[in-house]
């Protein structure tokens, strides 16, 4: 199953060098490429080489590394491309705008009036609604828990660990896969 997933996933194909791309960074577990139709010149994607459709499936160690890479790219965009600002943007699930079933971090250089809009109009919630949401989240985060990241872990070990942790699709009973069953 893992092999088949890799074959049909565009990003796995890019990671495997089967599809040409403008790579700007690569290591054991992470890859960053330029978006050829980016929202701005310098728009990058950072992604894990392992195939994980959504963020909830990415092990913490790999996730930490990916966002550190994204952060370094963000710094580079400021320093090397003289960006006035940067956005780090993740779409998780179809309603959030995800189009490829492989977890991806967008890093976007920004300047004034560049046509990108990541703002929103606030919704009015009553105090009661806010309290309900607060309670639900608080309760749930207790069940979910937040993992501690082992600081010294190297990417190479991370890969191994990720493979061990990766549940194959055949015995997938992952809650999120069901929840976000409509991931593209």
């Amino acid at each position, binding site marked *: 199953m893992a092999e088949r997933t890799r074959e049909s996933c*565009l990003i796995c194909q890019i990671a495997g060098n089967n599809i040409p791309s403008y790579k700007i960074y690569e290591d054991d577990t992470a890859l960053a490429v330029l978006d050829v139709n*980016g929202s701005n010149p310098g728009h990058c994607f950072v992604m894990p080489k392992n195939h994980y459709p959504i963020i909830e499936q990415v092990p913490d160690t790999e996730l930490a590394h990916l966002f550190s890479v994204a*952060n370094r790219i963000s710094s580079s965009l400021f320093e*090397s491309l003289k960006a006035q600002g940067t956005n780090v943007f993740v779409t998780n699930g179809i309603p959030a705008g995800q189009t490829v079933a492989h977890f991806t971090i967008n890093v976007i250089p920004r300047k004034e009036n560049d046509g990108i*809009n990541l703002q929103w109009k606030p919704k009015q919630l009553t105090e009661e609604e806010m309290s309900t949401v607060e309670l639900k*989240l608080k309760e749930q985060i207790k069940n*979910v828990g937040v993992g501690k*990241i082992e600081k010294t872990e190297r990417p190479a070990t991370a890969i191994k660990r990720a493979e061990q942790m990766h549940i194959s699709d055949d015995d997938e009973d992952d809650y999120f896969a069901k929840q976000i069953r409509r991931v593209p």
Partner: protein
Amino acid sequence: MPEQQAQQQLSPEQIKALQEKIKNMSPEELKEFQKKQCIFCQIIAGKVQSRKVYEDDSAIAILDVNPANPGHMLIMPKEHYSIMPQMPDEETGHIFAVAKALSNAALRSLEVQGSNIIVANGVAAGQRAQHFMIHLIPRKENDNLNFQMPQKTIEDAELKKIRKVLADSLGAKAEEPVIVPLPKLNREKKVVDAEFNEKKQQKMPKQIKKSEDKRTGKKTKAKSEDGDGINLDDIAKVLGER
């Protein structure tokens, strides 16, 4: 947004005096000063009320008082950093692991089907608070949120130039990518498409995630194999679809 409360009206003289004061501060004093001025540092210290959903040694998550959607959270380091590039790797890693866990919690408890993670560094990127934070916004269909990320046509020459600049700055080798030719296509595309369309018309029962995966997998495959080979436009099309 709570940060608006932090903005005080100052006279030009006061501003000038303040600027002078800031200029003469040691880095430590400056940090202390920023912290004092920052509404989110006040929230973290418990001096300003908030709806806290998560807290540990280095990170905190509160509900945004002006949410894009119900459950919109702000996840912040307790330490004052203005923008993400100031964050040490260790803290960056931890705070996004927290974001992942909270996204997880939102999916489980708020009847949503997705989430957006947004970080804005700098005013041009839409940053309004002077404290680095991650916006975590739970999403569902038709929730009236509309993030606009237009696709631009970027010339090959410019892409090459940018790639070299970024690769150099990131310390990676700025070589041309290795391109392995794709294996010859077999013409099963039509079958795949037909299967896809047929399945699309059916209502998807909840538990069929597995076949769904296969379906969407095939969809991408069929799409990218369309034509004689894969070129950058194809990737762009799939990658860039928003």
